[in-house]
């Protein structure tokens, strides 16, 4: 039955009254207590009284207005008579409830059933803000408002109203969670006070129409809105300017409508001889009609109207928004603050302690006795009975936790204590800075009672508190908290300060000691003799004495420990986590024996760069974890880590980066123990790779071997040591290829070899000090060199994460190196084409191509002879360089060319892989030379064709000479053998 929000309806009036603390608000003169305010209203001399109670959310406006309403009703039920005389007073209470306009209007209609005919428009308004069509109606209202005001708009927004009357824009502007939709929801759905302070406004993006919506209104405006964000902002502002007006128009209660409704009702009541008392907890629930409401209940001094007492609760912003002319018509403006109920400004903590004591007493009373308490409040203004009186443990309880006096009775403060509520309220760790009665009930009393009921589960006290770790915890915990569980030790960061007001165990232990059994805690294992015996250290009644002097321990230390306590004991986010992450980063960077491990490799270790706080992830830290590509060292929210962090904090702040502080030796031992236990885990965390590094290594080594063959055109040395040496040191040369693929692969080979080699060396590097790589583990290279030389694949390595873990290997996998076999086939084919392209040349010069190498030899020798003949004949080839090259084709050089072609032919006749053993460039050079020679000599031949046509050669002469000699010899033979002269038969 305990609620932080005034629960008056549904038979809860007794509970409300029993736990109600008198409220004192202020007006422009001074404090006004609740009874005084009631009398002002009840006995007002004027027929119309309008009182505004303003205050921040949770300050107690509703509490006060509800109390006034109850008091009003109680008084009307008794012999008291208001200033309204004998009139029947109808009191209407509009509570906040869901906070929606619809709900507020419905309450009004429900509580004035006899005046329904006057409320038809309000019912229509309720219907108007509901249903799917409401969005469209608001859309249309905006059109009407903007249309009416078009003349006041800036030049480019004169036609803004068209946007709210275009078929194309309806769907966009009325879309779910758009400004229109959110405003409609606000009218019918639950909302909190903060949200009600403002409307969901249009934004510039609402006027950035999707293509489908960019239709049906002025084209120029559409273009400008599409292109100009400034104009879109202006459009949103313009629409927002009329949004409230449009919503009011949507309800149909805009202008004087609400005023007229109230007027008609009051006229009717006047005719009936009745009076109206209107209590509204929060006017903001009436949303855009707040001004209209105030306007409707303002004093009008019209005798046709019944007397009216209006008490309206308003938030400060809502009140500020009221026009000055309306403010001037308000009879009394009262402001209610936190102190109005809790009286925190009073000396001591009596106000707040009494506040909670009423609740605690009411709670202990239960439904059977609550009426008695309520009756005391009605009759005597406050509680006058204590449920503790019948409690068998009253004495011990009050000895431990203290009590509050209400007249003659003593109400125990268990589980709080004198001043505890104030400290807890101040120590709350909430998103809001509001510290009011609602906060106290909602965030302190209720959670604490719940936590006590469950015996303090966890290391906290069940309240969202800032921990206040004892300043001497590190020093004293081993001595004073021996035998305590980790959770109990953690809880000391709350119990000591908040329940005793002391900052150190030495000072507060004696005060806390009698409370410990009530919290199911073991006693302190040892109390400082100087503090006296626990039994002698009853908590002083007055906790307002000056706070103890801060111990020597740096403030930073306490602050760090407090945040740590909150993190672990309250399961709260770790505030300013960077501090702890930096400490942990230092541990990771400096204390792990990375030199002793090869897995993860140095390369993988290096992927994360310098380990910083960004690499540290503490469970529950506020900052988002570092990007996934870096090593992440995760520290869970555990007692072990909590203690470890506390030791690190001590190391940092108490020992000034050393273990030289009280308790440091123990902390250092714990540190060493922790390290030996966790080191392997955190070394493994360096490995952020997900793919198989061995497979990556194999691929890399395969590539280097292929690159070696590709570049140097020979296989690795058979000696493994030399082969490894070559793998890690060979420099790829510029490799000529006949095919574009080969040349492409050659172009980026140096960089690729360097990158892949770096990966391999980094993977295999054996750390030796801080220097570079001077020793590697060659075994993986040797293992991966054993694959068949005919296998030109990069091996099987298919990992989805290879791109992240081994980017250079990933790029290699996407390169043409994966298709080396096909590339070599292409090169093989190109080589064949190249070599046999010489057949045309050779045939032209009538050289047999049956034996290509020998044909090349003949060709080159003949060409050289031609050139020599040219030189003898003073005939130039026309290309000096080429002429010189041909002239210098000595037999050895010719043999070299022949040998090159011979090797080329051999490769062509063999498998494509054989290309890797051939310097294709030399073959190409030879072919190129031959073709150059061919072209040049053909030109020469053509140039000399005229001159050579009748030339007699020596050979011709010699041939003729030989023929003549032969003939003469025949003649001689004839002369010598005349007897054998042939007979002629015919």
């Amino acid at each position, binding site marked *: 039955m305990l609620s932080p929000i005034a629960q008056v309806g549904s038979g809860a009036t007794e509970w409300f009254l029993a736990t109600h603390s008198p409220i004192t608000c202020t007006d422009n003169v001074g404090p006004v207590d609740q009874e005084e305010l009631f009398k002002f209203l009840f006995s007002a001399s004027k027929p119309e009284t309008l009182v505004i109670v303003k205050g921040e959310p949770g300050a107690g406006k509703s509490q006060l207005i509800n109390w006034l309403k109850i008091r009003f009703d109680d008084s009307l039920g008794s012999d008291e008579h208001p200033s309204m005389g004998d009139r029947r007073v109808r009191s209407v209470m509009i509570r906040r409830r869901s906070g929606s306009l619809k709900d507020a209007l419905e309450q009004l209609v429900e509580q004035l059933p006899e005046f329904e005919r006057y409320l038809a428009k309000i019912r229509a308004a309720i219907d108007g803000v509901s249903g799917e069509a409401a969005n469209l109606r608001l859309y249309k209202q905006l059109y009407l408002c903007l249309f009416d005001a078009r003349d006041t708009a800036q030049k480019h927004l004169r036609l803004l109203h068209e946007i709210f009357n275009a078929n194309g824009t309806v769907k966009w502007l009325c879309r779910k969670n758009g400004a229109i939709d959110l405003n409609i929801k606000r009218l019918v759905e639950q909302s909190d006070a903060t949200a009600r302070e403002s409307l969901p406004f249009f934004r510039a993006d609402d006027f950035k129409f999707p293509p489908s919506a960019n239709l049906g209104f002025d084209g120029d405006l559409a273009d400008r809105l599409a292109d100009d964000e400034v104009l879109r902002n202006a459009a949103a502002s313009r629409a927002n300017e009329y949004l409230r007006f449009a919503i009011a128009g949507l309800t149909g209660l805009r202008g004087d409508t609400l005023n007229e409704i109230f007027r008609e009702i009051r006229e009717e009541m006047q005719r009936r001889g009745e009076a109206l008392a209107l209590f509204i907890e929060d006017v903001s629930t009436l949303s855009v009609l707040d001004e209209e409401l105030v306007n409707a209940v303002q004093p009008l001094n019209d005798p046709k109207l019944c007397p009216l007492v209006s008490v309206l609760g308003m938030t400060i912003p809502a009140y500020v928004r009221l026009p000055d002319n309306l403010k001037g018509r308000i009879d009394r403006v009262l402001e209610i603050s936190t102190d109005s109920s809790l009286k925190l400004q009073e000396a001591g903590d009596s106000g707040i302690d009494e506040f909670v004591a009423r609740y605690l007493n009411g709670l202990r009373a239960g439904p059977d006795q609550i009426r008695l308490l309520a009756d005391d409040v009605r009759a005597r203004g406050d509680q006058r009975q204590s449920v503790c009186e019948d409690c068998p443990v009253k004495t011990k309880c009050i000895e431990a936790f203290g009590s509050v006096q209400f007249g003659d009775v003593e109400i125990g403060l268990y589980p709080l204590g004198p001043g505890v509520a104030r400290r807890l309220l101040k120590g709350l760790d909430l998103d809001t800075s509001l510290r009011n009665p609602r906060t106290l009930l909602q965030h302190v009393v209720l959670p604490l009672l719940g936590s006590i009921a469950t015996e303090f589960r966890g290391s906290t006290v069940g309240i969202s508190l800032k921990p206040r770790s004892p300043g001497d915890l590190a020093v004293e915990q081993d001595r004073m908290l021996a035998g305590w569980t980790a959770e109990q030790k953690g809880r000391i960061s709350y119990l000591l300060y908040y329940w005793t007001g002391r900052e150190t165990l030495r000072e507060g232990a004696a005060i806390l000691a009698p409370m410990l059994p009530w919290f199911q805690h073991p006693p302190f294992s040892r109390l400082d003799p100087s503090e006296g015996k626990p039994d002698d250290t009853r908590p002083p009644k007055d906790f307002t004495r000056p706070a103890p002097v801060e111990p020597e321990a740096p403030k930073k230390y306490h602050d760090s420990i407090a945040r740590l306590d909150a993190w672990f004991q309250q399961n709260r986010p770790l505030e300013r986590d960077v501090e702890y992450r930096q400490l942990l980063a230092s541990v990771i960077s400096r204390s792990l024996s990375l030199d002793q491990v090869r897995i993860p490799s140095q390369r993988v270790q290096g992927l994360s760069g310098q380990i910083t706080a960004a690499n540290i992830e503490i469970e529950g830290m506020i900052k988002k974890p570092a990007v996934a590509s870096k090593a992440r060292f995760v520290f869970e929210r555990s007692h072990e880590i909590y203690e470890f962090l506390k030791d690190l904090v001590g190391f940092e702040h108490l020992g000034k980066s050393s273990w030289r502080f009280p308790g440091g030796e123990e902390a250092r031992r714990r540190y060493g123990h922790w390290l030996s236990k966790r080191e392997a885990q955190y070394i493994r965390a360096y490995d952020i790779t997900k793919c198989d590094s061995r497979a990556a290594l194999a691929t890399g080594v395969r590539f280097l071997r292929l690159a070696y063959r590709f570049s140097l055109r020979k296989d690795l040395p058979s000696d493994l040591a030399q082969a490894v040496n070559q793998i890690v040191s060979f420099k790829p040369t510029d490799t000529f290829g006949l095919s574009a693929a080969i040349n492409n692969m050659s172009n980026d080979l140096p960089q690729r070899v360097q990158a892949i080699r770096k990966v391999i060396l980094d993977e295999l590097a054996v750390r030796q000090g801080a220097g570079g790589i001077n020793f590697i583990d060659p075994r993986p290279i040797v293992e991966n060199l054993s694959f068949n030389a005919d296998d030109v694949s990069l091996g099987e390595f298919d990992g989805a994460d290879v791109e992240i873990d081994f980017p250079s290997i990933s790029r290699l996998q996407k390169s043409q190196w994966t298709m080396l076999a096909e590339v070599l086939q292409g090169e093989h084919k190109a080589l064949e084409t190249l070599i046999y392209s010489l057949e045309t040349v050779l045939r032209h010069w009538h050289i047999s191509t049956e034996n290509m190498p020998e044909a090349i030899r003949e060709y080159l020798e003949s060409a050289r002879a031609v050139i020599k003949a040219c030189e003898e004949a003073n005939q130039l080839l026309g290309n000096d360089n080429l002429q010189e090259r041909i002239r210098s084709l000595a037999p050895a050089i010719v043999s070299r060319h022949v040998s090159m072609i011979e090797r080329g032919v051999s490769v062509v006749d063999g498998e494509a892989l054989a290309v890797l053993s051939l310097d294709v460039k030399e073959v190409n050079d030879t072919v190129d030379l031959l073709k150059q020679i061919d072209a040049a000599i053909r030109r020469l031949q053509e140039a000399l064709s005229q001159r050579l046509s009748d030339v007699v050669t020596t050979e011709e002469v010699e*041939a003729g000479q030989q023929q003549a000699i032969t003939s003469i010899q025949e003649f*001689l033979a004839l002369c010598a053998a005349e007897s054998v002269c042939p007979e002629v038969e015919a």
Partner: protein
Amino acid sequence: MTIPSGLRGLRALEAKIRGLPNQDTLQRRRQIVRSTQDQVRGLQSELILNLQRVNALRIAQDNSDLLESNVKRALASASAKTIELLALLRKDDFDGRKISEKFDAIKRATKSLADDTGTGWADICNEYTDQANAIRPIAERLSPRLLARIQELDGLLAGKRNTPPNSVTFARSVVDAWRAITIEIESLAIKPAVKQFLNDAKNGTGDPKSIIDPEIRTFLDTYPLLWKSLYVVFR
């Protein structure tokens, strides 16, 4: 452009280019060797022809040693000069004049042999012609067949008296023609006294008294036309 035999492509081109600087010499030398070859071929043909003629004459005369000394002399002379010619031609630097002289000498040797064969053939032709003419009148009167044989010989030799034959067949046909005449004469069975009487009568030296010889008288009676051919003249 002529490509030397067995030299093609680049080698041929090379040769052509290499020949460019000394075209005059090469042209001249080519002329010499070409001429030499032509002349040698001509001499060879001529020599062969003459030797064939010698062969034919020997058959026609049925004398295997006919003109033997002439032949030996001519060939010896030609051989000697041909050897000298060969030596000249084998030199790098041809001497056209000397070569020409050698050819002249060789030609003279072969020409002498040609002359000898021409004379020999003329003698043969004359001998056959004379003998045929001698019996021609008697043949006209005594035997048309004999006359036919004589006319066949005339046909063989007609137009060929100035050119010695080189054909053995021809030579044999001449011999055969004469042998046919002889056979025809023998077939007339003329007794010696008659034969003597006829010869004398043919030569105009016959004695009319011989007519009273019975054998002659009988022979004359057998061939009455012979009687009509006899007339007496006074010396």
